[in-house]
């Protein structure tokens, strides 16, 4: 099996965020070793205290919680992106591992395939 890293780069209110999670969950369901990296505005997906119902959207929380249930091993978040947005990992709803730039480069090398979604 070729391992797959999905880089999720869009804010939670965008359809793209949900569609990136769908790709990871599908791949994981097929037994593909998967990781997901939240980067750029994608890090906002992880923020605690969101209430998407107020803008008549379905919360992403269930899909995010499903990641570990589906066996997605690496749940990662970009340190630089968090910092630019004034966020700390303690504000994240998932137990995401923080990656600095050097670690990111290594991570992307480590996976067989990488999709930026």
């Amino acid at each position, binding site marked *: *099996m*070729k391992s*797959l890293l999905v880089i999720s780069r869009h804010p939670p209110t965008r*359809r*793209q965020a949900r*569609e990136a999670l*769908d*790709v990871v969950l*599908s*791949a994981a*369901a*097929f037994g*593909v070793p998967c990781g997901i990296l939240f980067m750029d505005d994608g890090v906002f997906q992880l923020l605690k205290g969101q209430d998407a119902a107020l803008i008549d959207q379905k919360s992403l929380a269930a899909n995010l919680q499903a990641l570990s249930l589906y066996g997605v091993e690496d749940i990662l978040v970009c340190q630089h992106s968090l910092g630019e947005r004034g966020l700390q990992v303690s504000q994240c709803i998932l137990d995401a591992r923080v990656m600095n730039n050097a670690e990111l480069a290594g991570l992307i090398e480590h996976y067989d*395939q990488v*999709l*930026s*979604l």
Partner: protein
Amino acid sequence: MNFAIALLAGPQDPAARSALEFARAVLASGHRISRLFFYRDAVQLASALGVQPQDEKDISAEWREFIAEHQLDAVVCIAAALRRGILNKAEADRWDRPVANTDAPWEFSGLGQWVDALQTADRAITFGT
């Protein structure tokens, strides 16, 4: 080599053209395309209802001809398509919609087809991120 090519952006985006030119170059170079996968707004390419001005290219028609000519496996993500109002006859019937707006050579299937293509192709490349 076997290529899996995915497109994420719709007909209005320059990526729809880039992906087609790349796919043509893949075949012209003697390689094969094991699957084309259309996700996100790229599912709009499958619509048979677009009307372009006469002096502009119809990228949707070009994709359709390319796929048909080379008998390629061209999969439209069914979940993305349903949301965006792209339906073939089977889906229109299933969801009780009055008409369909797409047909062969486009095939409707799930994300599993992309996962499968990523696993089995020698090279995977995505356009329109």
